């Protein structure tokens, strides 16, 4: 039997938005306002019924079992932060209730409660106590925390002299070593350098493997995918979808980018070629044939091109299709023709779909333009000037490690690294060559 760790029933949170008071228009008005203002302020603070209200959260219900790791995603303003604030008891709900089983540790903002004048050592104790740890727990964890943060040299220096990186490392270390039954983490992985981010992700998955319940909020789909098995998508203050990670991320990305495919192949757009066969549509699919609104780096993706001959009759001759991806600097990143791989098409039907599968899609997240050309027997039949459509690529787990790598270069290549001592054959040869070179 798995116990419920978090039960949220009909949760709602209403915020009052005070109407802005009118501006003074003249010196006289300003002087009068001086007298009136306190009275009006008192009145406006007292009168609460007729000020406009908004529901930041409305009728939110879900259940999380002990040991589950939930990704909470949604656009800014969808109510994620409000939900987390209620779960961490920073603000009370207006309606509904939450039942929590176990101690809650929340990491809403790294470094909260650090005092600049105090040393790292002092701050560890203060911050730990604030997160609900007992003194002996902190003492027991102290070395581990310092070790994780990598600031042991400066542990007795006031944190105001720390670099921002050190500050954040120490703060995450304290929070990550808290051992709550329920851990609420909001976007902490957005801090620190790549190496530390990896360390954080590692620590997070360690926490989740220890059977703790985790609610993890992030805009990084790579991090969400590598940590969670279930996602809750929030929208407009409510739960939009509560589903498994694959579906959730797909639907979320679809919603995020929907409406971006403009009519590249619309009638009236300029096209080159003799028109013997024409592109009629372009879309992306996953390997199971489901349409993809967005591709993810590192995932297998299928580009599908629908075509039609001018008269609808089967095509006579050799059909050669090619496409290329162009980035927003108008650089063509790669070109793929079916001829390259000796996959030749001859006498195809009058209407059909050409599909090209790209394994482990190697480009970094961006918005790419897809251009294409159809040749029949070596003669250009169709080449739409603008291209066929856009290909949105978002963060994925290319390296299979949850790391996103650098965005400074357009391609991602899987490296297989090793290190060995200098005495091996290759380096001996290298040295020998060096010696013979004048």
């Amino acid at each position: 039997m798995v116990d419920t760790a978090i039960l949220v029933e009909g949760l709602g949170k209403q915020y009052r938005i005070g109407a802005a008071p009118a501006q003074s228009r003249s010196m006289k008005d300003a002087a009068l306002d001086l007298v009136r203002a306190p009275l009006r302020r008192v009145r406006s603070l007292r009168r609460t019924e007729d000020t406009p209200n908004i529901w930041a959260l409305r009728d939110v219900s879900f259940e999380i079992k002990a040991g589950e790791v939930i990704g909470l995603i949604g656009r800014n303003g969808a109510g994620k932060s409000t939900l987390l604030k209620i779960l961490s008891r920073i603000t009370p709900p207006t309606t509904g209730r939450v039942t929590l089983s176990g101690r809650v540790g929340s990491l809403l903002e790294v470094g909260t409660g650090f005092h600049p004048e105090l040393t790292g050592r002092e701050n560890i104790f203060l911050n730990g106590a604030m997160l609900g740890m007992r003194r002996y727990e902190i003492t027991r964890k102290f070395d581990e925390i310092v070790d994780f943060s990598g600031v042991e040299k400066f542990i007795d220096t006031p944190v105001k002299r720390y670099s921002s990186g050190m500050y954040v490392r120490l703060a995450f270390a304290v929070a990550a070593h808290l051992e709550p039954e329920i851990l609420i983490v909001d976007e902490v992985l957005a801090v620190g350098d790549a190496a530390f981010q990896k360390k954080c992700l590692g620590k997070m998955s360690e926490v989740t493997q220890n059977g703790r319940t985790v609610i993890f909020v992030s805009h990084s789909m790579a991090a969400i995918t590598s940590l969670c098995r279930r996602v809750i998508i929030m929208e407009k203050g409510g739960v939009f979808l509560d589903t498994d990670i694959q579906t959730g991320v797909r639907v979320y990305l679809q919603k995020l980018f929907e409406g971006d495919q403009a009519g590249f192949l619309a009638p009236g757009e300029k096209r080159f070629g003799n028109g013997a066969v024409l592109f009629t549509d372009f879309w992306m699919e996953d390997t199971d044939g489901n349409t993809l609104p967005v591709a993810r780096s590192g995932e297998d993706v299928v580009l599908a091109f629908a075509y039609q001959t001018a008269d609808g009759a089967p095509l006579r001759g050799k059909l050669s299709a090619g496409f290329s991806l162009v980035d927003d600097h108008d650089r063509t990143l790669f070109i793929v023709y079916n001829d390259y791989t000796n996959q030749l098409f001859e006498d195809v039907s009058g209407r059909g779909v050409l599909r090209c599968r790209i394994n482990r899609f190697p480009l970094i997240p961006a918005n790419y333009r897809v251009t294409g050309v159809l040749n029949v027997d070596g003669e250009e039949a169709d080449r739409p000037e603008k291209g066929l459509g856009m290909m949105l690529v978002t963060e994925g787990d290319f390296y299979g490690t949850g790391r996103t790598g650098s965005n400074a270069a357009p391609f991602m290549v899987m490296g297989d690294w090793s290190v060995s001592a200098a005495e091996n054959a290759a380096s001996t040869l290298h040295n020998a060559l060096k010696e013979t070179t004048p």
Partner: protein
Amino acid sequence: MARLTPISSSTPKPDVYVPHKLVIEPPSRWTSLELRELWQHRDLLFFLTWRDLSVRYKQTILGPIWAVMNPVASMLIFSLFLGGLVGVASDGVPYPLFSFAALVPWVLFTNTLNRTAVSLVGSAGLITKVYFPRLIIPLSNVLSSLVDFGLSFAVLVILMLAYGYLPTLNILLLPFFVLLCVMIGLGVGLILAAMNVRFRDVGLFMPFFLQAWLYATPVVYSSSLVQGDLLRTIYNLNPMVSVVEGFRWSLLGVGNSPGTTLLLPIALAIVALVCGVFYFKQTERIFTDVV
């Protein structure tokens, strides 16, 4: 974690950890004090107090001497002008000792009140990010004020010995007056802290408020100056009168020994504290939405 360690073999119960349930619901009008939770966070109380103290005197030359400077400097000024130039009567006690014996509890009172009054707003950065029982903050202010009080009390003892005053058995009642003083300071401070969340006027109003209260309390003069039944009755509505008189009585042996006259200030202090705590508890729930 202690709660997760297996139950020892002597207990026949199965090794099942049952976490405590916590229900979060919309705030009701009457909130509980959540004393159990306060107790669970006692380490935080300790660390916050210690942070208060160490931060206040870090990068200062005189360090904790500053805690004593406030009452000592006031005592010197009052002794020079009121004791020396004006010649205010001091019930037969040397004026410096007379005023200092009152300034020590008075500074404890104003420190508690001042620090408590800004506690909610001053810790906004913390309160909007981490949950812990908010009462911890004013309580840590009380503790840090008590530490400062301890230092200036040591100076008071030295001053007493220097003037040849030896403590009598009356001193046994002194802790009670300290408690009364802290209760009033904390109670009024909590009310002001909660008001301060909505009306920042509180911070600007405080100096006048405390100055007026100082003159309504026999710190620089003797309460024997207050004559007339009506005036005296109104005067006694200020519970700090009893605190200051109590201090002088238990340390210097001047004034009437306190008796049933203490009932009113005790009642007032309890009312202030209860009102303060409940107003504070109510405000802390909406705090993050208002600040």
